[in-house]
């Protein structure tokens, strides 16, 4: 982390960048927040560790409107999101100074809660310089430890790799965190009967409270004004009606990012109701890969997406 701060101070001092977009220490060890730093002094609050899961690429839309370059820290998977935004002219490459930061998998309080660890006062073992295999945790009710892996976000278990597709420089090491196939969950659902599938999604989606966090955090959902907020389609964007609206919203949300979704997993990370929203996005990714050839959104900032291209012999609807 100190290396990051030192390098950042240099870049601020020599005028290469006007500001820094990174993470600020929270009031608890588990809740750092995305933040801008305008000078070397404020960097004393800078933090980068396992809890810094937020994908900062979407903030670069706004930062592209500011004067001067913004230094942004992107994890390997975040660079795909940035590249996709670049492809859609939503960010300005010239306005960004990208430091690719190492990633050993991201953890969250919610994941700790899920394994019964609550009220976390202090955590050791989640720094980039740590081995990141065990977390030593102090809680309100006593001390405990757990495997780093067990506190990891779902997306890190199926991480696509630690490649950076766009950057200006790289700092820090990454570690292989993969221990699953990212389409396994999708396959599991596909193997269910239609009735089971319907029951599964009904239970999950009926929890939706239409807070729009999934949409607003999504780097592919970068519309200035979402179609669900416009009057053109006459859709209620904030009322949960427990019948069809949620399904419509989630299907269309996933459809609109099909071929553009980099599978960054932010939607599932932020859902207050723990809906596995990535399962919808991944279904499209899996279909696209199967039907139209492997495609990885964000890998390149050029070229058409699967839904803006075609071949003469494409599969017919309803046959797959």
């Amino acid at each position: 982390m100190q290396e990051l701060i030192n390098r950042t101070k240099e870049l601020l001092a020599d005028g290469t960048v006007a500001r820094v977009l990174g993470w600020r220490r929270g009031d608890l060890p588990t809740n750092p927040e995305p933040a801008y730093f305008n000078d070397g002094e404020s960097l004393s609050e800078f933090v980068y560790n396992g809890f810094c899961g937020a994908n900062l690429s979407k903030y670069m839309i706004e930062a592209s409107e500011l004067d001067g370059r913004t230094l942004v820290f992107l994890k390997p998977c975040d660079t795909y999101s940035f590249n996709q935004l670049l492809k859609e002219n939503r960010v300005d490459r010239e306005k960004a100074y990208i430091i690719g930061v190492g990633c050993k998998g991201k953890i969250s309080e919610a994941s700790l809660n899920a394994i019964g660890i609550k009220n976390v006062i202090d955590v050791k073992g989640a720094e980039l310089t740590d081995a990141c295999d065990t977390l030593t945790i102090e809680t309100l009710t006593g001390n405990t430890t757990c495997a780093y892996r067990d506190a990891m976000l779902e997306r890190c278990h199926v991480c696509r790799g630690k490649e950076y597709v766009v950057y200006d420089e790289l700092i820090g090491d990454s570690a292989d965190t993969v221990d699953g196939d990212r389409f396994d969950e999708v396959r599991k659902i596909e193997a269910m009967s239609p009735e089971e599938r319907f029951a599964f999604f009904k239970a999950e989606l009926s929890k939706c409270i239409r807070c729009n966090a999934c949409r607003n955090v999504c780097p592919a959902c970068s519309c200035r004004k979402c179609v669900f907020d416009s009057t053109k389609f006459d859709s209620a964007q904030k009322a949960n009606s427990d019948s069809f609206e949620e399904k419509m919203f989630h299907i269309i949300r996933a459809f609109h990012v099909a071929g553009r979704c980099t599978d960054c997993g932010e939607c599932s990370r932020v859902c207050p109701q723990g809906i596995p929203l990535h399962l919808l996005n991944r279904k499209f990714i899996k279909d696209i890969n199967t039907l139209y050839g492997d495609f990885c959104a964000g890998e390149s900032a050029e070229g058409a997406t699967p839904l803006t291209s075609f071949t003469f012999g494409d599969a017919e609807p309803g046959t797959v």
Partner: protein
Amino acid sequence: MYKIAKENLPDLYEAIAETNTLYIPVKKAGQTNFEQWTRSAEVDIKTLKTVKSPKDAFFPQSENLYTCGKEGKKITITLEALTDESFVVFGMKACDVRGVEVLDKVFLAEPVDTFYAARREHGIIVAMACNEPELSCFCKVFGIDCTEPSGADVITWLIGDELFWRPVTEKGEMLTDSVKRLLSDGDDAAVEAKREEISKIVSKIPNMRLSLDGWGRDDKLERFNSPLWEDLYKPCIACGTCTFVCPTCQCYDIKDYDTGHGVQRYRCWDSCMYSDFTLMAHGNNRTSQMQRFRQRFMHKLVYFPTNNDGMYSCVGCGRCVNKCPQNLNIVKVIKAFKKEGV
């Protein structure tokens, strides 16, 4: 004081549900929220905080106001009936109950919101003391005692293998009478011991000692004009999570739904985080996310107490602390101002 063995709780639910609609924390697809009880529901009264607050029981996320029907050129208008049957909300925590009191200030003041008033009249609150307050809790800051919720009709404590039950209002007594066959006499001492135990946990939680210096009705424009907001709002992604999980957020929007045979006019929660919040024909009076972000906290910590005898419209439940996608929350805001000494 009464008590009932934990294993007999299903009978209690059944008994309550005989004469009331029962809302209780139910676990569905991994998350616990207040829902209408059914025999097959997986009741979960152990989870401290439901994702959404029980606010829905009195002020649903969306509810019909009236329905216009149309046949040919004939138009009919049917008002939505007011709640006229009693219901019980079981397991509300002290902060949640205070949340309802905050809503009362808004909806029961003139002009009275009849939909809300009817629900308040027919609703019976069975509150439950918090067994294990969490690190994100800061109810004490607002004078709430989570060991003994106030404002409820019945207070309960989960102690060991038993649920202790104390009716405190007339409504509470009536409900108690209807289920008395399932209850036995309880012992105040056990409750006092439990309260003591809980208080010890509370004393260990740093945020319970949060200072509200400078907030409340004294402040006028100083905080409003602070440059700190510009920095604080930045990570906000303008989702409605904080407002939708909040037990006191009371803003709503009124919309029409075209059913094809007419129109349903309904209201649904709105969020001050949304760009169309208070959008009017001429445009919006808060045009930036900073302004909307500021509104939320100024409202809870300054405007509301100013208008309501010092009552804050935050109850320290800490749901927003847990759920904000980017880890922003009211505690951080309070701390930031404290640190800057504004």
